[in-house]
């Protein structure tokens, strides 16, 4: 089956090419068929190849296929080689399967849009790039996918390009992630200089021979690679672009800014785990950044009005959990949470998109309300996503994935009490803002009349994703009950076992606390937004709370900070120098020449006797000099 590996990315690419060149000439129906069909086919190929991969695990647990040599200079060579191992299989599964569902949803969602073909062309290109990213066997090819998804993200955020705000959001997304990418590029140079290759498996095999554990060079390399991941995955301090990226259509937010692209950083760190494993400092940095981000973004999500911005901050926060897991060494837990998160967050975005469309592009949750009975399908599916996000114990997939991370953040080799406490607080906050979102959107009085309800093509993907959001968690059950480890067993050929500390308290205690945190958060949301909304009014009178609310609402003022520190100075410096100061040097020379000429031209008076005087004086001078010497 490995012969067909190339088809997985090639089908979306084919779809992109058809739509880009012929999109103008074919009917909208054909556009939908090509656009969604290519991804569905790709998903089918993925199932076939993945099935073969799982049933007969190949020798070294990896399928590789070299297509051609990209370029070769001296001792550097980069091949276009795809490789499928368990880690990339999980990602490919999420990308093609969820991608196919989102594409089907989009055929209905984007129906009325003028640029139907452009939308699907960009989406297909995105899926292609993302697949290249996760299937690449060397870092350079991965970088190609990495930048490719950035481009598609730019195109799709700015899809409705006539509004300047969308263009600005798109530009911001590209530029901020590019900062991380530049650092990552330097990381690649370091890897090549030290390892002499960019092929992931070769780096992995020789990592401990190349680098001393905890040496400066391995730490710097890891941190540079991490910087790329931070940009793409919207983690501190490069998180500011993701909330603005919600300017794109909802399916885009679901696919790119929730399920797949933003988790590229997680993939990168997991893929390069051999390097991170060698540097304790780098892992600590990963964990701390993850913890800080999950808390910060969670608190921000509590204060947002726009339903998509709540989900965006929630995405940042959940990816923070994944980074935390990576940092403490719980590699499989991070990837597991990635997969579950992809299901429920894509679901939440798609459902939110359906709501927004039905309410005539109303994003503000405070103007929604009362949708429980009017949009039952959306309500129930949204609920499934929400309990998964809030990690309601036992019944939701999110519980199984997040509980693992909470447990490991204390008990794994890199874990400690502070990280655990932060993660637990995050769980409480998550439950609180999820409940708030649910109540504001679905309960209470209706504030906006509903337009048309979503059709079958939109609800079907919601239902499928809802099923996964509830049941997908059962493939990996905690050690103390069930101890069912299908998912981590699958990944263990690629990712190492989590290294545990000695003498840790019972896992039951942690699960109890996590469940309590979730339930407490739900209760808080229920209490403040359903039972006693007047309490919120009371809170609003407190000056400190208002200040804090404003601070959190602005995303901890990061935008203002960067604006003042980086953007404004850059624009200022660049604008004052518009005329190019170095040119003054040359215009200065030209001006001096002009002045000299004016000076000398005064001697050209036309008076013959002055000329003769000059002649004589010159002759005398020369004679004088000759005699003197």
């Amino acid at each position, binding site marked *: 089956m490995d012969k067909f590996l190339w088809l997985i990315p090639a089908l979306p690419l084919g779809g992109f090419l058809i739509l880009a060149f012929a999109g103008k000439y074919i009917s909208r129906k054909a556009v939908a068929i090509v656009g969604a069909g290519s991804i569905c086919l790709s998903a089918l190929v993925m199932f076939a190849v993945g099935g073969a991969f799982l049933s007969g695990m190949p020798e070294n647990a990896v399928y590789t296929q070299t297509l051609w040599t990209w370029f070769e*200079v001296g001792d550097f060579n980069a091949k276009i080689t795809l490789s499928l191992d368990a880690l990339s299989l999980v990602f490919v599964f999420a990308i093609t399967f969820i991608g196919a569902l989102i594409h089907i949803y989009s055929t209905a969602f984007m129906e009325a849009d003028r640029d139907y073909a452009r939308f699907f062309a960009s989406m297909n290109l995105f899926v292609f790039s993302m697949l290249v990213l996760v299937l690449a066997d060397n870092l350079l090819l991965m970088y190609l996918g990495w930048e490719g998804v950035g481009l598609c993200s730019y195109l799709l955020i700015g899809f409705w390009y006539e509004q300047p705000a969308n263009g600005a959001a798109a530009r911001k997304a590209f*530029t901020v992630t590019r900062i991380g990418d530049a650092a990552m*590029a330097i990381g690649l140079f370091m890897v090549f*200089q030290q390892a002499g290759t960019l092929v992931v498996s070769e780096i992995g095999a020789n990592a401990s021979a190349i680098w001393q554990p905890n040496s400066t060079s391995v730490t710097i390399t890891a941190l540079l690679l991490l910087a790329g991941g931070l940009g793409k995955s919207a983690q501190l301090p490069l998180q500011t672009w993701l909330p603005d990226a919600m300017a794109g259509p909802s399916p885009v937010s679901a696919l790119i800014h929730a399920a797949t692209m933003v988790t590229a950083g997680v993939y990168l760190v997991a893929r390069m785990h051999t390097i991170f494993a060698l540097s304790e400092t780098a892992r600590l940095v990963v964990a701390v950044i993850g913890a800080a981000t999950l808390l910060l973004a969670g608190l921000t999500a509590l204060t947002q009005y726009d339903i998509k911005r709540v989900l965006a901050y929630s995405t940042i926060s959940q990816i923070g959990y994944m980074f935390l897991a990576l940092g403490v060494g719980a590699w499989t837990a991070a990837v597991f949470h990635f997969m579950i998160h992809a299901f429920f967050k894509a679901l939440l975005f798609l459902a939110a998109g359906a709501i927004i469309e039905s309410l005539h592009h109303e994003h503000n949750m405070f103007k929604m309300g009362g949708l429980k009975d009017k949009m039952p399908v959306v309500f129930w599916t949204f609920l499934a996503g929400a309990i998964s996000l809030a990690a309601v114990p036992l019944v939701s997939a999110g519980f199984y994935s997040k509980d693992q991370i909470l447990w490991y953040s204390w008990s794994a080799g890199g874990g400690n009490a502070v990280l655990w406490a932060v993660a637990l607080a995050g769980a409480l906050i998550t439950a609180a803002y999820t409940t708030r979102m649910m109540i504001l959107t679905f309960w209470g009085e209706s504030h906006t009349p509903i337009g048309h309800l979503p059709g079958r093509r939109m609800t079907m993907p919601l239902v499928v994703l809802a099923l996964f959001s509830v049941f997908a968690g059962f493939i990996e059950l905690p050690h103390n009950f069930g101890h069912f480890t299908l998912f981590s067993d699958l990944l263990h050929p690629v990712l190492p076992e989590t290294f545990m500390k000695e003498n840790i308290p019972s896992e039951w205690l942690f699960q109890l606390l996590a469940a309590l945190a979730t339930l407490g958060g739900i209760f808080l949301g229920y209490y403040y937004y359903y039972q006693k909304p007047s309490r919120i009014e009371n809170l609003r009178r407190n000056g400190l709370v208002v200040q804090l609310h404003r601070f959190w609402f602005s995303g901890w003022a990061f935008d203002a900070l960067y604006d003042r520190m980086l953007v404004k100075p850059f624009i200022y410096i*660049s604008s004052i*120098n518009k005329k190019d100061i170095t040119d003054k040097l040359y215009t200065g020379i030209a001006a001096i020449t002009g002045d000299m000429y004016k000076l000398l031209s005064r001697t050209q008076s036309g008076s013959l006797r002055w000329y003769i005087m000059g002649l004589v004086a010159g002759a005398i001078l020369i004679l004088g000099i000759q005699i003197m010497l």
Partner: protein
Amino acid sequence: MMLVLLITVLMVGAVAAVVAGEWSRHVPRWIALVACVIGLMCVIAIWANTSPAGGSVPSGQWLLDYRKSWIPSFGISFHLAVDGLSLLLLALTFFLGVLAVLCSWDEIRERTGFYYFNLLWILAGVAGVFMAMDLFLFYFFWEVMLIPMYFLIGIWGSENRVYAAYKFFIFTQASGLLMFLAILGLYFIHGQDTGIYTFNYFELTGTVIPFKSAFWLMSGFMIAFAVKLPVFPFHTWLPDAHGEAPTAGSLILAGLLLKTGAYGMLRFVVPMFPEAVREAAVPAMVLGVVGIIYGAVMAYSQTDLKRLVAFTSVSHMGFVITGIFALNELALQGVVMQLVTHALSTGALFLMAGMIKERLHTRDIGEMGGLWGPMPQMGSIGLVFAMASLGLPGLGNFIAEFLILLGVFQAHPWITVAAASGLIFSAVYSLRIVGKIFLGPRKTMETVPDFSFREMLIMAALTVSIVWLGLFPQPVIDTARPAITELVRFMDVQSAALQHQPYVKQ
């Protein structure tokens, strides 16, 4: 003989065009097109014959050689030769020549005969520069490029053309004279050492020069090439010349004339003054990095589209000089790629600026906006080349910048770190181009037609090339390899020799 043909076909075409221009306005463009196409086919024929796939594989670096005595009493000969590097740049010359003729097709309506005469004459000069293996002949071609370009800007340019033409002329002429002095200096030093007075490149490269004079001679060459490239403090002629030149003029300036500077450094400066080059490497690379950042920042503030693109050239050429002075194979291959891909990507952006100007009659990006709606084709192509200029993987420029940075990293990591900031700045200005021109609300409600067939042909050729170079760059790398490895080997031998004779420096 093939090499002589390349130049004569252009020169004959030029004369024919000016003669035909007396009778008809349309015949000259056909003559020019035919001349360029013949040249392009000749280059392809040479390439096909000498590539490993073709029949005769030459053993060394040089593929073809033609030599005739010219002024024997001064040791001047008419000596042309090509290696892989020259061949690539020649192919580029004729390819862009065809495009330049095509893009002037309707734009030029006055004095067409003389226009195409100048155009072809510049191309002849550029082609000569890439082939000349006699320093006198090289200087001759160097000047041949200059004067028709002066006319091209000065006669067919836009409002401020005379100023721009003068500035271009004075910068290049003054720096060219310094180079000529350096050539003469080299000529006499070699003559005094060996008793053979010759301008022949191959004999002059072996000259042993005291370090101090080597440094001054190198400076003479370097200034001429640095002005042409342009390197940071010498770049100020470029925005003016680009801004005012007609579209084809900008295309040739960006695509070819700038490349002669880089070619000169690779061909003459590095092999002739290896020791001085080694000494000057770090300052030169720093200048390159300054150019990368300065050009990008300047590009961000420009409102005139062509000036903006001109500053992006300054930024990209910063990569070239940084790469040349890294003096290893990775970086030098990157430089060769950068020469080719920058010519295509920046050339395309200039062509697009010209096409937009024909439609909107302005170069001010403040007056554009929302053009994606009426011109989706131009929008997508514009996006491709904006992405090329920010170095998106999958397009040619990425390979170039990646190899340069990777090569420079081996030599001087900190310089790479500074240069990599160019990746961020290039994103900033490229997205500004796309945003200002194609996105946002419409500023004018005029109807603007999308690409015509001829325009589509030009842009399609460029797009296909840049994507091809991004995905299959190996043929270019293989073609340049003998020249580059020879250069690197030469530098290594030099430094090895120096370690045995440390006194040479005194």
